[in-house]
């Protein structure tokens, strides 16, 4: 049975594309057949985060306009043969695709893939409507900041109004040292406010920047963010995984944890 997951947030820059890339890669790593669709027409980025920007021939708009078949536009990942990317178009705008066309495309892809991950653009306009049109469930990405949480709340309302009821929250870029001294909302605070199910907490980790620089998602690698994303993937698949013990830890604790794992 296939599942269509939209990764959305409302606010830009909170980590939708990073989350999409890592969740897609992580699910492929677990042996699932996955296609990532970049629905941000005009501002495509998922190809860069995946390190596949040099292999693009056709794009999403070409597919919906019938210039090529979906198969021709999908780029196979460098590492995982069962992971594909359907890139967005860079020189068109959001109105080039309609929600009905997206829905049709997604239905077609369901036959071949276990997971279809839709990387949604920021905002609540056409691009958002396209991305959620065919979705079974949503991952809302937020950071522990007032603006991001406010937008997330708005998105939750819009998703529910559009009959997407399975909504899970990813709290991204949390800094436990700041939470500890009371200068950042904790995951409990955020959950208390948004009142949806939590599926992952991703700590602020320099390794994310490094992995984006290199165009290689870090899911599953030996660092906290990599672990956090791997756990999110397992939870998406329905496994119960305890949340990472995140601490504003010192050097020795960190060392102990790295070796103790």
């Amino acid at each position: 049975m296939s599942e269509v997951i939209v990764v959305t947030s409302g606010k830009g820059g909170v980590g939708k594309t990073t989350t999409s890339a890592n969740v897609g890669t992580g699910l492929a790593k677990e042996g699932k057949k996955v296609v990532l669709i970049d629905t941000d027409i005009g501002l495509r980025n998922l190809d860069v985060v995946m390190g596949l920007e040099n292999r693009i021939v056709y794009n999403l708009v070409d597919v919906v306009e019938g210039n090529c078949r979906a198969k021709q536009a999908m780029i196979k990942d460098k590492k995982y043969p069962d992971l594909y990317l359907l890139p967005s178009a860079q020189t068109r705008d959001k109105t080039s695709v309609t929600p009905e066309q997206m829905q049709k495309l997604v239905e077609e892809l369901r036959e071949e893939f276990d997971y279809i991950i839709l990387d949604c653009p920021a905002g609540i306009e056409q691009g958002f409507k396209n991305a959620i049109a065919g979705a079974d469930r949503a991952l809302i990405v937020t950071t522990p900041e007032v603006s991001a949480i406010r937008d997330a709340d708005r998105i939750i309302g819009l998703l529910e109004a559009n009959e997407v009821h399975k909504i899970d929250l990813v709290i991204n870029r949390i800094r436990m040292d700041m939470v500890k001294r009371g200068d950042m909302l904790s995951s409990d605070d955020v959950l208390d406010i948004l009142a949806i199910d939590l599926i992952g907490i991703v700590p602020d980790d320099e390794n994310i920047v490094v992995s984006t620089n290199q165009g290689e998602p870090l899911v599953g690698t030996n660092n906290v963010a990599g672990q956090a994303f791997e756990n999110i993937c397992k939870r998406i698949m329905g496994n119960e995984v305890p949340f990472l013990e995140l601490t504003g830890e010192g050097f020795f604790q960190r060392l102990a944890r790295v070796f103790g794992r």
Partner: protein
Amino acid sequence: MGFFDNLLRRNRSADDAKDRLKLLLVSDRSNCSPETMELIKNDIIKVISKYMEIDAEGLDIQISQNNDEVDGPTLYANIPIREIKK
């Protein structure tokens, strides 16, 4: 930022964030300003107080959109009762 700074600094910015968000979301969710909510709250206190003694300080009203039973937003009122008037 040492241990003693934490002790001395009582105003934690996360608390500010939480308070601001709660207010903000009430008006976002309901298209209803904090002032209107305050008016509703005061009227509720007035009406209920006719029949029972309530803890006006502990009264909490909010508009929520996460409700399985009802379509659309719901107004929740949590009103602690001190004593029911006879």
